[in-house]
């Protein structure tokens, strides 16, 4: 019988109490030394063949009979009121079926980034001001170019530091100081002044991190399709069920009439949560036209409007006693939010919880500008905040004459200082020890003692802490088919993380089937029950226990049936490798039993149980970077990254590695090459493309050694697994920045550490 439970959920530091419905008995967790045969072993991703053959259909690839193509038209001004918008010429183009502007778009109230679907109030260059729909994308582009727009220009501010000035232009009329919530966020524990007074050494740093653009290779967008009163939305999203809920609510449709589909997804990295205007524009237009509407962003629009990791300016001050015990941390930071900001990333997160420190104070602000709005980007706040914290820790170690790693080891927290609870697991010491051994930490020099040759090498490290335990609600269903194959059905989604594969592994493990006999459907609200948003590294921690629970239910049902068919006690039946045993005696294969039953389908349902109340579930780890700086060209080359992360039980070392590698390479981009470039006078983003927004190439990629810590977190949930999507990116930029400082003997405080910045630092030396 379903039970209602109350549980605490922590997603990216936002803690909430939630009711959850839990089905079936909570399974005892797989033990730390549980003998598992499928979970924990490398397995190629089960959807690999579809993805390498071109058969995987992404949202962008959806083609339906009669489908028309939408094109988003962007504002060229950064701050203006549209005084006239004339679409007559555009509409006259042969093949154009509709043009929407603020004058004729349905009046649906929005929250967050947009207040209306389309507006005459332009707050950043690149804001969508019209949508042209035509029979072909080329026709839509032709027509878009013919839309005439007149603007009443307003003053603009496109630099967050300038936006803080007393006389700065207001980005939003109701925010006089351009601050999110009108004021800084302050967090405090203990007595910082007393802490600094008790310190023997104090280090202070100022660092800047750039605005980073997600650049998921599939852009944002959707295809909307009506069949009678039934709406199907194909959307490139991190939350399929969220798309359904959003569309149903805003379009005032019953949820039962809305289907959302995201079977293959070309990357999200935090920016693809439901709630954007394009979904509703596509849905309403498709209804009016009675034709499916394909509405995807192009690369420029993607980079201008759909979100970014806002630039930061951070000041970090840390005090310690002679022996390295931290006495106080003071953190202040601003994070640029663009023209609309829903929330402030937890920049202060690392400073507040990475190391044990009784006295802490932070002041953080979200700053509005006339630039594209921010969105979550893979461990928002923590990637940036770790750069500041770990720079300060290295400077402090230098002042103390202490090994930077020892300083960190000395201050490993014994409790979660935010939740005031013990951690369920925090094997940081092991991450430090094994990581240091793998990089050869003892080779690290003292700052400033580098050779004068063309190339200078350095080693640095940084730590990681993050959540990722997941929680309810998350549900799964399983079907056992008459040929003995099983299907896992759940409405979660696989962004490319490998979710499908580990869910198949869990189901096969619990049910006792070979992996090849299990298939998984995700990304369709009509093909499985509710799955949570894939953000905050929660999917593994939320979904694997739910699937295990469903597989266990199915297994019990199968055992019941075998017990009745063979007239033996249920508790003597075991299923392993697709075979059914009574104790050690082989009875029949699952396939044979199911065949005998004929046209039957056994079912199992399962859910994610509540989180533990008495512990805080986090992921933790460390990365070590070795770099080589070319003093002729200023180019920093990362030679090697060693990563050691605790994500609880590693479900599949192969896809786990890919997650960590991916995080590292994105972190390296932030450290060395990626930055949005803005002409702040004109409010123009100059590189909303892949030509001058420089992603790392294959030639930039270092050797990577990912050490598998692999300690099941048996207190966290029934599989002992936690997320790996975000941990991998959190320490990378910080570790590289510290390694460059080690190589140069001087800190480049502004990321990315590009050749211009290196050459300027060398010139100043």
């Amino acid at each position, binding site marked *: 019988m379903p039970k209602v439970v109350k549980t605490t959920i922590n997603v990216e530091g936002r803690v909430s109490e939630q009711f959850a419905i839990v089905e079936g008995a909570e399974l005892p967790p797989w033990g730390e030394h549980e003998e598992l045969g499928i979970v924990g072993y490398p397995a190629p991703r089960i959807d690999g063949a579809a*993805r390498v053959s*071109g058969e*995987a259909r992404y949202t962008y690839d959806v*083609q339906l009979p009669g489908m028309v193509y939408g094109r988003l038209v962007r504002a060229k001004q950064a701050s203006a009121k549209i005084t006239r918008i004339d679409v007559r010429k555009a509409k006259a183009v042969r093949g154009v079926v509709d043009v929407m502007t603020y004058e004729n778009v349905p009046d649906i109230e929005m929250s967050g980034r947009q207040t209306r679907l389309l507006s005459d109030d332009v707050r950043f260059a690149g804001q969508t001001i019209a949508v042209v729909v035509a029979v072909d994308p080329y026709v839509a582009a032709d027509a878009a170019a013919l839309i005439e727009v007149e603007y009443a220009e307003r003053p603009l501010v496109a630099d967050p530091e300038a936006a803080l000035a007393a006389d700065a232009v207001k980005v939003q009329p109701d925010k006089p100081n351009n601050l999110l919530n009108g004021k800084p966020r302050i967090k405090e524990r203990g007595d910082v002044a007393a802490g600094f007074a008790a310190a023997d050494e104090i280090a202070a740093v100022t660092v800047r991190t750039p605005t980073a653009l997600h650049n998921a*290779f599939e852009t944002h967008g959707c295809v909307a399709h009506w069949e009678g009163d039934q709406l199907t939305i194909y959307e490139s999203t991190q939350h399929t069920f969220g798309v359904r809920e959003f569309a149903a609510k805003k379009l005032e449709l019953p949820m039962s009439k809305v289907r959302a589909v995201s079977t293959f997804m070309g990357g999200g990295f935090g920016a693809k949560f439901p709630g954007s205007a394009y979904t509703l524009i596509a849905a309403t237009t498709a209804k009016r036209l009675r034709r499916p509407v394909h509405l995807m962003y192009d*690369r420029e629009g993607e980079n201008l409007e759909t979100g970014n990791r806002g630039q930061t300016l951070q000041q970090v001050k840390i005090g310690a006693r002679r022996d390295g015990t931290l006495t106080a941390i003071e953190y202040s930071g601003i994070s640029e939010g663009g023209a609309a900001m829903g929330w402030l990333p937890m920049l202060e997160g690392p400073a507040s919880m990475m190391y044990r420190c009784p006295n802490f104070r932070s002041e953080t602000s979200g700053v509005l500008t006339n630039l594209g709005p921010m969105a979550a980007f893979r461990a928002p706040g923590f990637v940036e905040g770790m750069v500041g914290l770990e720079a300060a820790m290295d400077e402090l170690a230098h002042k103390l004459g202490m090994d930077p790693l020892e300083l960190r080891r000395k201050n490993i927290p014994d409790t979660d200082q935010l939740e005031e609870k013990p951690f369920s697991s925090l094997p940081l010491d092991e991450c430090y020890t094994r990581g240091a051994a793998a990089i050869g930490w003892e080779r690290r020099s003292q700052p400033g003692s580098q050779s004068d040759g063309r190339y200078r090498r350095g080693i640095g490290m940084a730590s990681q802490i993050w959540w990722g335990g997941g929680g309810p609600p998350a549900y799964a269903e399983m079907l056992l088919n008459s040929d003995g194959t099983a299907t896992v059905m759940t409405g979660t989604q696989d962004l490319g993380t490998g979710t499908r594969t580990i869910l198949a592994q869990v189901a096969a493990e619990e049910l006792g089937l070979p992996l090849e006999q299990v298939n998984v459907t995700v990304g369709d609200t009509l093909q499985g029950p509710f799955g949570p948003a894939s953000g905050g590294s929660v999917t593994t921690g939320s979904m694997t226990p739910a699937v295990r629970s469903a597989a266990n239910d199915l297994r019990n049902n199968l055992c019941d049936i075998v017990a009745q068919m063979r007239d033996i006690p249920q508790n003597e039946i075991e299923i392993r490798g697709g075979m059914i045993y009574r104790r050690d005696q082989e009875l029949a294969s699952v396939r044979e039993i199911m065949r005998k039953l004929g046209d039957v389908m056994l079912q199992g349902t399962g859910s994610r149980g509540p989180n533990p109340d008495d512990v805080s579930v986090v992921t933790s780890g460390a990365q070590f970077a070795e770099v080589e700086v070319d003093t002729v060209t200023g180019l920093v080359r990362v030679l090697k990254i060693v990563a050691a992360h605790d994500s609880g039980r590693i479900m599949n070392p*192969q896809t786990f590695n*890919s997650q960590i590698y991916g995080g590292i390479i994105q972190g390296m981009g932030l450290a060395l090459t990626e930055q949005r470039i803005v002409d702040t006078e004109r409010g123009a983003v100059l590189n909303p493309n*892949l030509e001058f927004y420089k992603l790392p190439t294959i030639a930039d990629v270092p050797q*990577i050694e990912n050490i598998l810590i692999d300690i099941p977190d048996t207190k966290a949930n029934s599989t002992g697994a936690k997320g790996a999507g975000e941990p991998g990116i959190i320490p990378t930029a910080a570790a590289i920045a510290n390694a460059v400082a080690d190589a140069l003997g001087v800190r480049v405080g502004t990321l990315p550490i590009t050749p211009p910045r290196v050459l300027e630092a060398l010139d100043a030396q």
Partner: protein
Amino acid sequence: MIEHGPHKTAITLEVNGLPQFVDVEPRRTLLDTLRIDLGLTGAKLVCNMGNCGACTVLVDGVAVYSCLTLAVECEGKAITTIEGLAQDGVLHPLQQAFVQHDALQCGFCTPGQVLAAHALLARNPQPTEAEVVAGMAGNLCRCGAYRGIIEAVLSAAQQTGPQQ
């Protein structure tokens, strides 16, 4: 001299060994023709400006960006897309290597990666790691599957063995 356009014009393309007849404007890129007119959506539109590699296809065996190639230019040339690599439902050894080495995450850049690797191995069947890196440098991967890609290409080269 052959003149096409500016309006739609009938052309014949040889795609994955089969003749395909399409009516296209001269301005239509090969990428859009493959994806929209022929339903071959394996080649991906990511940047549309030759800055990413996701639209890579082979034209007469040479890896090119189909977003910077016009369909009309390809009459009489053999075009290979990702859909043309598997034979009778069996993945090409390179595709198998990409799966085995987890040389992908979201997979959106993967068709382009596989075809770039195919062209690389056709020219240099036994590349060194440095040659793989140089040969694959025209295909970006936002998920960061590069290490797996290097391993996959090296392993596929080894499997096929030295060629004459």
